[in-house]
């Protein structure tokens, strides 16, 4: 009797790495988990794909970022890249109102604590040491499912469990029930 109306599109990961070998590797790793993958070779191409325009190129009355046309659920980027580094890409994403909630993961061949801390402080969810392995990609699951649920806030979840009510239902509940019902739960 319960119906769950959520989108079933595969989760989409944007991978950024200037090395074609590493791009092939990360793409294969991600596809093992059935993610849909787009791989680009630079930070600027990543921003272009995400629909984030260069502020200087826009007329003055336009907002400084556009609504992205494609949905990306996670971005995984190399740190060391010519031009825009992975750190700079991370920063631009976190500064963007439309993109800041997309989880970002950094990959690097250098095990430098200062670098790792800087990335985590700037908002990266994880820092993977290269070469990246299946066990690393396995750690991405929580970041991807959280974001997915957030994007589906509008969907209604009706459960068979009669002790739970639809979130916008005004039927009165005991104080006890209200306390244990988390506010950010949509179903």
């Amino acid at each position, binding site marked *: 009797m319960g119906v769950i109306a959520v989108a079933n599109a595969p989760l989409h990961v944007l991978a950024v790495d200037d*090395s074609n070998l590493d791009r092939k590797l990360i793409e294969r790793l991600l596809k093992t988990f059935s993610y849909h993958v787009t791989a680009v070779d630079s930070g600027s191409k990543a921003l272009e794909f995400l629909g984030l325009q260069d502020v200087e190129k826009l007329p003055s009355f336009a907002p400084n970022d556009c609504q992205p046309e494609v949905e990306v659920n996670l971005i995984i980027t190399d740190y060391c890249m010519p031009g825009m580094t992975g750190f700079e890409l991370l920063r631009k994403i976190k500064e963007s109102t439309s993109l800041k909630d997309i989880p970002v993961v950094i990959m690097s061949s250098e095990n430098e604590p200062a670098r790792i801390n800087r990335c985590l402080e700037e908002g990266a969810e994880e820092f993977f040491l290269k070469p990246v392995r299946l066990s690393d990609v396995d750690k991405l699951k929580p970041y991807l499912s959280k974001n997915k649920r957030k994007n589906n806030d509008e969907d209604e979840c009706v459960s068979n469990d009669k002790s739970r009510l639809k979130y916008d239902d005004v039927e009165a509940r005991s104080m006890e029930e209200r306390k244990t019902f988390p506010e950010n739960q949509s179903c």
Partner: protein
Amino acid sequence: MDAVSQLQRQFVEYTTSLYREGYLDDQFTQLQKLQDESNPDFVVEVVTLFFEDSEKLLNNLTTALQQENIDYKQVDAHVHQFKGSSSSIGAQRVKNVCVVFRNYCDEKNLDGCVLCLQQAKNEYILIRNKLEALFNLEQQILQAGGSVPMMA
């Protein structure tokens, strides 16, 4: 022992020796795990990219170290890339040379760099020959109707 079993045993012995002698590390095993029916040539494809990258980088390094005024930052950038790609396929001895090479770049030590470049070339040729021999063995097994043993 029939032909297939003989080839399979050769394959196992050869692969084991490559790990034991440090030519390959666990990352190569990780690559093999990513090969399956829907990606049957994954390892060969990745290793081919490594060969292409390596030859380009070794040429760039040779040119860079022949300049009158050596740009050590540029040399280091090439070595960093080479270290990355060798590490990504598990070519351990090549990677180890790159680590030493980068230290010489930091010190702007020309003699050290020239020595490392030669070592990098030697190690690259060695691993290229060994991987080609390994792939050759795989082909022979498959052509004889057998299956390639999975290394744990």
